[in-house]
């Protein structure tokens, strides 16, 4: 029997060897000699972390219990890898283009860089991975206890688990968080797990070869033993065969650690092509001897032996201590490599999607002020790693390590598989939205918890026996093992079927019923059209960002050397010397993706957004800009309207100015006119006054001259009266005394006052004049007198005659004054209403020429109008008065 001390000693040597390999790989990579580490072979070997202790020990146990069913766990990933062209290639392409750091980052980035979604996926991943880590700790403990059997136990099983967890935490922290790589790749870790992959494959093959050709009598004998064994018959249930194959394929795509090695650590797309056949081959080799080991174990070992440990107990039973040691190291490798990568992947997710967003929010302007983002991220990752391993350890302690390995693994797989519908929808369906993704994930998580996770702790721990038997709240069709009353399904198939179905349904329904945000739309296009290498749709704008500020921020996040390298390369590409490239949109985009490799897409975007301030252009910003543009356009429209108004006003002002100019000219003309009008009588008055002073003047002449002076004075007075009258009327200062009056009375009075009957015959039709109107009768009389006097004065007919015709229309009363003279010449018609306008010569008129001007003002004050009526064969004036 192998001594426990030797076992622990060899294990420690092995661990030291792994540390050495990882350290050496990191050194080589740093020195630029790491090219050969990026080979398809290393890539394929790193994928082997899919084969955990569950595979190494559990597969044999699985096979011993259910025959060939264990193969489903490998057939699913085989199909996924063979179909790499369809899904994996797309995932790798997207992850490379978007600098995706984890599966949470993938979904967060796809659905509008949603921090919420990233956080949710992270929580799901932690919940789904914790049992799995516990499983690895359990396998290490159990395998050591095999050797400890019969010897004095210096280490209790919990101690072993604790020390293993602690050792793994140290390794992971040392090599997993050494730096923040822009690509989030870990040469040392990848190299170490590649070595472990070889060790576990060799160990299992060695045990298999020993079992087939050492214990049994070759391949033929093994086949015969199979036919004679309890698992001789093909008894796999259809549901489990399909369900488990699907589940393993889904988990292979969604497990955080698989995503880490397969997508994030992928350095070249062509490595996938190699892995597409090489990894299925690895799986084939890993499972080749599982059934033989199980069958021989069942055959040789005493009944009741734990089939999960056949890999160890078979060599031990044959006293093959070296082989048993190798087998132990194989199992140890399987467990540790899984825990290391899972811890790295989860810590990245936790720091990028939970810690950093919260920290950034708490700091507000965080990234732009002082503070070492880099140290925050690294510290949060280290703490996360410790936290994850502590959780795994606690789960192991609480669950007591009782359940069979396979069932714990399946619970984990089913939990993680809930991400699949959203992930596939995200990379193939442009219509998928964040709301849909959240709905699907939450729905899947709830159904999985209820049907699988909570019952896995056993009755009365987290869920009551009552609920298990009769459904939640006694609702029969809510029984966790028979949802909707469908009984008879295998519990795993039942849980997977309902959780994935309802998850997909909620995802599709949510996506169809909700609208994506602008950023989601852009990211959707980016993801769906990953193979159209067009320019990126999202963009940064050359703005006020200072390259130096950017450099100092980048140094804080990805480390001085890497940041300087990135900046110098960018500067060289721009044809510049030194470390400071122009902050062109292309450079900002490169930088964002570089930062995204360290802190996740959402955080990198937010940080660069804070840094670049207003110059960062997300689609939301573009929308804002568009809003602004709309505002500017509206403003411009308003300006245009105002400008139009101003033009109108200007035109009005110009018109007014013209009018004023005209008025000014008229005023000048008026003044000239009035001076002239005043001067003529004054001149004669002065002349005759001088003559009157002449003593030689005869007495007969004296009264004659005095009368002339008097006449002229009267004329002056009349002129001044008229002027005064006109001025009052024009200024609107006249006070009208409106009252009801009969038109005939007004005309009678006017005819009497005009006193022109001996000069002209006035013909009226008294019957029509019997109309009452509301007017100022005195003023109206004045107008009529004027018109009658004018007719008498200017009518040159043999027998002058003036017809006064009154007409009633619904809106107005018109009074026409038509004489039988020659009328007014066409040239004068326009201006007879102007002041001092006279159609004939002055001497004859005997007035100042203000009569018609006054008439017009009076009538306009009365609300009517007076106009010359052409075409009446004599002078004709029409006075229109409004009806009341």
């Amino acid at each position, binding site marked *: 029997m192998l001594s426990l001390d030797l076992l622990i000693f060899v294990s420690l040597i092995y661990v030291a060897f792994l540390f050495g390999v990882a350290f050496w790989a990191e050194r080589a990579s740093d020195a630029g000699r790491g090219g050969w580490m990026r080979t398809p072979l290393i890539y394929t070997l790193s994928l082997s972390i899919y084969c955990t202790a569950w595979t190494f020990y559990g597969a044999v146990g699985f096979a011993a219990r259910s025959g060939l069913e264990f193969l489903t766990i490998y057939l699913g990933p085989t*199909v996924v890898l063979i179909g790499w062209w*369809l899904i994996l290639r797309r995932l790798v392409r997207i992850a490379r283009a978007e600098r995706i750091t984890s599966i949470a980052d993938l979904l967060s980035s796809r659905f509008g860089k949603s921090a919420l979604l990233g956080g949710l996926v992270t929580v799901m991943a932690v919940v789904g991975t914790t049992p799995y880590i516990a499983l690895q700790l359990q396998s290490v403990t159990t395998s050591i206890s095999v050797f400890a059997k019969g010897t004095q136990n210096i280490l209790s099983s919990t101690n072993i688990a604790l020390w293993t967890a602690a050792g793994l935490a140290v390794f992971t922290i040392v090599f997993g968080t050494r730096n923040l790589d822009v690509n989030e790749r870990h040469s040392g870790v990848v190299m170490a797990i590649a070595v472990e992959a070889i060790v576990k494959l060799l160990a299992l093959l060695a045990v298999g070869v020993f079992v087939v050709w050492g214990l049994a009598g070759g391949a033929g004998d093994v086949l015969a033993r199979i036919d004679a064994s309890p698992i001789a018959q*093909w008894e*796999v249930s259809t549901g489990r*065969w399909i369900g488990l194959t699907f589940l393993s394929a889904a988990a292979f795509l969604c497990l955080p650690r698989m995503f880490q090695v397969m997508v994030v650590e992928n350095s070249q797309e062509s490595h996938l*092509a190699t892995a597409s*056949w090489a990894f*299925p081959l690895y799986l084939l080799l890993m499972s080749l001897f599982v059934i033989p080991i199980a069958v021989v174990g069942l055959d040789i070992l005493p009944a009741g032996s734990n089939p999960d440990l056949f890999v160890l107990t078979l060599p031990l039973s044959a006293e093959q201590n070296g082989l048993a040691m190798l087998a132990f190291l194989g199992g140890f490798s399987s467990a540790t490599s899984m825990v290391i990568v899972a811890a790295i992947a989860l810590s990245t997710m936790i720091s990028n999607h939970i810690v950093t967003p919260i920290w950034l929010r708490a700091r507000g302007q965080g990234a732009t002020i002082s503070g070492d983002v880099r140290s925050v991220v690294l510290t949060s990752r280290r703490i996360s790693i410790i936290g994850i391993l502590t959780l795994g350890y606690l789960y192991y302690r609480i669950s007591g390590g009782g359940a069979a390995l396979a069932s714990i693994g399946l619970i984990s797989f089913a939990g993680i598989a809930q991400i699949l519908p959203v992930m596939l929808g995200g990379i193939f369906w442009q219509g998928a939205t964040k709301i849909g993704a959240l709905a699907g994930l939450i729905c899947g998580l709830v159904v999985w918890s209820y049907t699988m996770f909570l019952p896995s702790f056993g009755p009365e721990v987290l869920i009551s026996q009552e609920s298990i038997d009769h459904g939640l709240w006694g609702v029969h069709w809510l029984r966790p093992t028979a949802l909707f009353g469908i009984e008879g399904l295998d519990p795993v198939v039942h849980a997977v079927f309902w959780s994935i179905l309802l998850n997909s349904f909620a995802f599709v329904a949510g996506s169809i019923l909700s609208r994506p945000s602008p950023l989601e739309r852009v990211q959707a296009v980016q993801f769906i059209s990953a193979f159209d290498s067009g320019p990126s749709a999202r963009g940064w704008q050359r703005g006020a960002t200072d390259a130096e500020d950017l450099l100092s921020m980048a140094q804080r996040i990805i480390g001085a050397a890497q940041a300087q390298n990135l900046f110098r390369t960018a500067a060289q590409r721009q044809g510049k010397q030194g470390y400071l490239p122009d902050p062109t949109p292309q450079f900002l985009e490169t930088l964002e993706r570089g930062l995204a490799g360290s802190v996740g897409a959402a955080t990198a975007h937010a940080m660069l957004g804070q840094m670049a301030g207003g110059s960062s252009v997300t689609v939301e910003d573009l929308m804002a800009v568009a809003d602004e543009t709309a505002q500017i356009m509206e403003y411009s429209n308003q300006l245009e309207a105002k400008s139009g108004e101003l033009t109108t006003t200007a035109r009005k002002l110009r018109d007014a100015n013209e009018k004023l100019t005209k008025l000014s000219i008229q005023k000048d003309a008026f003044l000239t006119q009035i001076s002239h009008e005043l001067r003529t009588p004054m001149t004669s008055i002065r002349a005759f006054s001088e003559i009157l002073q002449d003593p030689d003047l005869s007495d007969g002449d004296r009264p004659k001259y005095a009368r002339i002076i008097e006449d002229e004075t009267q004329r002056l007075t009349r002129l001044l009266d008229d002027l005064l009258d006109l001025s009052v009327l024009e200024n609107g200062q006249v006070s009208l005394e409106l009252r009801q009056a009969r038109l005939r009375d007004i005309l009678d009075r006017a005819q009497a006052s005009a006193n022109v009957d001996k000069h002209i015959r006035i013909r009226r039709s008294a019957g029509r004049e019997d109309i009452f109107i509301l007017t100022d009768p005195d003023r109206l009389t004045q107008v009529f007198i004027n018109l009658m006097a004018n007719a008498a004065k200017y009518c040159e007919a043999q027998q002058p005659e003036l017809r006064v015709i009154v007409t009633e229309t619904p809106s107005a009363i018109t009074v026409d004054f038509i004489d039988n003279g020659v009328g007014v010449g066409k040239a004068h018609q326009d201006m007879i209403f102007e002041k001092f306008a006279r159609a004939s010569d002055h001497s004859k008129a005997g007035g100042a020429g203000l009569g018609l001007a006054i008439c017009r003002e009076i009538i306009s004050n009365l609300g009517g109008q007076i106009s010359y009526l052409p075409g009446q064969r004599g002078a004709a004036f029409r006075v229109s008065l409004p009806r009341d």
Partner: protein
Amino acid sequence: MNGKHDQTLKRAATASRGQRVTDSALILPLVGIILFLLPIMWPRSSDLDPVAGTATSTALIYLFVVWAGLICCALGLAFVIKRFGVGRR
């Protein structure tokens, strides 16, 4: 003229090969799924007729042969893709 014609032919041949490779890359996983799911239709032993069931050893050989066959196909496809660079579209 002749060279140009040759070039056109070559390009057409490359395009056609690219299409065929892409098609087979998409069909291969489908073939894998069908072949892997085939065993569910095999007869199973029952209490009434215990002899009619399929032996685990037969199933084992079938599954591993199919598996190996798929790996060979994937290997061939990967070779073609790497050699002619269809994957670097």
